[in-house]
């Protein structure tokens, strides 16, 4: 498929305007200091004049399992960071009855649209012998900055089946930067030193993903109008999908509900 040169230049110019206006797309659930990419250059095939938003929250009904405490006595540095006790994040139900750590993303509907690789890295912090964030997404080719804020030995050991795995030791406070080349969902990340440490990383070829936090909400802004399959995935309760249609400049609110045992 060859387009005339002039058309390419026009598209490029348009995209530049778009990115200047819109800023970052779906922000991965990274800590605050990394989310200041508002003025960052993110180009994409989205017309800001028609961009829509799908947002909502993830409810939880039924009974959640009791939080499982982590025996961290062997790591006093980490233990101190959990004054109220450290717990596994397998199921975290928020005070408002919503479910945390649900990964919400567009599963189908974007067609052949191609999105540029964001320049700002996603941060994965090892803090208090836990992964922060616990569940998150990244775009293909985007830098993942893996930080050790604990200063004790962690080894960052993702277990992908499509991407190439790696296993890097971080015995001191340090950063390691890595990227992932292929789309792959819910890659477990483990630390062999601390067998309770577990996180999930998804690699997508678009920016429309979000993880529910302590208010249970998510937001997928800057969407081209259309009909999408929205998926919500939780490590214990699996995946639910929903077909959603948004018109130009619309914001559509949706709701997922996960049920405990």
């Amino acid at each position, binding site marked *: 498929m060859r387009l005339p040169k002039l058309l390419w230049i026009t598209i490029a110019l348009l995209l530049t305007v778009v990115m200047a206006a819109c800023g970052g797309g779906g922000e991965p659930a990274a800590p605050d200091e990394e989310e200041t990419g508002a003025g960052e250059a993110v180009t994409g095939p989205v017309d800001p004049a028609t961009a829509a938003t799908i947002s909502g929250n993830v409810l939880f009904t039924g009974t959640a399992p009791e939080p499982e405490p982590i025996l961290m006595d062997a790591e006093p540095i980490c233990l101190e960071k959990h004054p109220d006790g450290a717990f596994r994040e397998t199921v975290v139900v928020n005070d408002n009855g919503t479910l945390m750590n649900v990964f919400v993303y567009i599963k189908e509907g974007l067609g052949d649209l191609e999105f540029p690789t964001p320049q700002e890295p996603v941060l994965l912090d090892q803090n208090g012998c836990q992964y922060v964030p616990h569940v998150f997404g990244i775009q293909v080719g985007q830098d993942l900055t893996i930080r050790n804020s604990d200063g004790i*030995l962690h080894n960052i050991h993702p277990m992908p089946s499509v991407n190439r*795995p790696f296993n890097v*030791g971080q*015995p001191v406070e340090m950063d390691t930067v890595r990227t992932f080349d292929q789309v792959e969902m819910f890659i477990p990340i483990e630390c062999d*030193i601390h067998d309770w440490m577990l996180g999930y990383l998804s690699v997508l070829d678009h920016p429309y993903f979000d993880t529910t936090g302590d208010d249970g909400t998510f937001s997928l802004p800057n969407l081209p109008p259309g009909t999408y399959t929205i998926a919500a995935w939780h490590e214990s309760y699996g995946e639910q999908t929903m077909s959603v249609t948004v018109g130009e400049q619309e914001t559509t609110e949706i709701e997922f509900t996960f049920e405990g045992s």
Partner: protein
Amino acid sequence: MRSRLYSAIRQAYRTKWGILSLIAGGFIIATAANSIFMKGAGPVSAQAQANGESIYEERCAFCHGENGDGNGPVAPYLNPRPRDFTTSQFKFRTTVSGELPLRENVIDIVEKGVRGTAMPSWEEILTESEIGAVVDYVTQNFVPDWGTYEPIVIPIPDPPRVTQAMIEEGEIIYQELQCDRCHGRGGRADGPSAPTLNDDLGFPIRAADLTKAWRYKGGSELADIYTRFSTGMNGTPMPSFYDVFPEEEREAKLWALSAYVRSLQANQPGETSVVRANRISDPLPATPDDPVWEQARPVSIFLTGQVIASPRWQTPGVDGVTVRALHNDESVALLVEWHDPFQDTEGGGNEGDTGDTTYVNLDQFVGTAGPFPDALAVQFSQSLSGGTQKPYFFWGQAGQPVNVWKWQADGSVTESNAAGFDNGLRPQESNDITASATWAEGQYRLLFTRPLITGEANDVPLVPGEFIPIAFQAWEGSNGEAGMRMSLSSWYSLLLEKPVPVSVYAYTAISVIAVAAAEWALVRKARGGSSSGI
């Protein structure tokens, strides 16, 4: 030792599974069979057309599987399991963590083998071109990403000359990098994170015991160690530490660390066939840590998996013990030391499902058995009158029984007798042995004492000056060992130093006088001779 191993393997060969048993013998095959059977075989034919596929099917598929997925017929019997080439994961590389290996890295492993595993060295069996052909077959047919990109290579410089200062700096780096989390402070693989380690397939995996050169799967030389830190071992918990140091310091730091780790291998005493018990006039050591033990010379004794009787145990935990002995004319004291990264004191566990073959099917077995207590036994021939005819080294035989002292970490100390492994150990009513043990930092130290002569007919009389047949057997509880799942040694000898008889002093005095007299006569004669010549 070697001839015993040989007969053990022949025995295994005769019983049931034929060659399958031998291959499943894992460690034994890697070491013994390689040196015994294959040396003479030589290259098939230098001219033979190197056909990777047929070589693979003949030599490799039994473990690595027809499809290269590491699921050959014997795979459930091997630990570690054969490499699954389809995962694109290779442990031994000179490339960045997670990357594919270079062709030469794969060739290197095929040539040298992987120590402590069932992967033998092929360099004396296959020609260079055959190895190249089979490596090309494996990589191009089974490894999905092979040839699609250029892996990033980590340069391995020439190793420097090791100095004491390097070793000392390396010890500090070992602590800074917290290698002890898995490998333990003394390198005995007893670190706090060691019990929960799994490989990428979810199978339990152990950190390497760095004090044992033969447990370094990728080689124990300085450059091998440097390479492992730098590249990590894909598919295992061993990460790459290459990015920890700034580039300008990296090389020196990693060499220092390599030098220190290599220095941990240095403290293994040599192997001899005789354990000598020095005679002391002091009381015998009361504990395993008694300084009196410094008067005894340590001896290394190697153990191997029990592969004679079903269930055959191809993945033993304890591969060697260090033994010292002392006596004081009344009693003998034996100090047995061995590495066991995890102390297991609990007993009464499930027997577990060992599968329906004579070897233990690890896929079925692991996780179904235990807990079992750690244990160690010392075996003696009941009689010293057999001369060179010793009982069968595994629990004796009819007409040539053995007496076994067994200590277990759950506190039990028993004396038993056996006349063949078929009948097992029969506990003895009288018990003249005492035993006490300590465990610290991945090492047991076990003290046995017994009077030289007891009133029990089944007890071996420990007569100074006699070569007393002695053998060792061990069980590592957390490795699923109990009953026949054990490791054992062949016969060695215990030699108690004889008291020096008074006649020795008399002979010495007589010989001194005789020599003096002869010299005096000689001098006189010489003087007389020279004067007569003038």
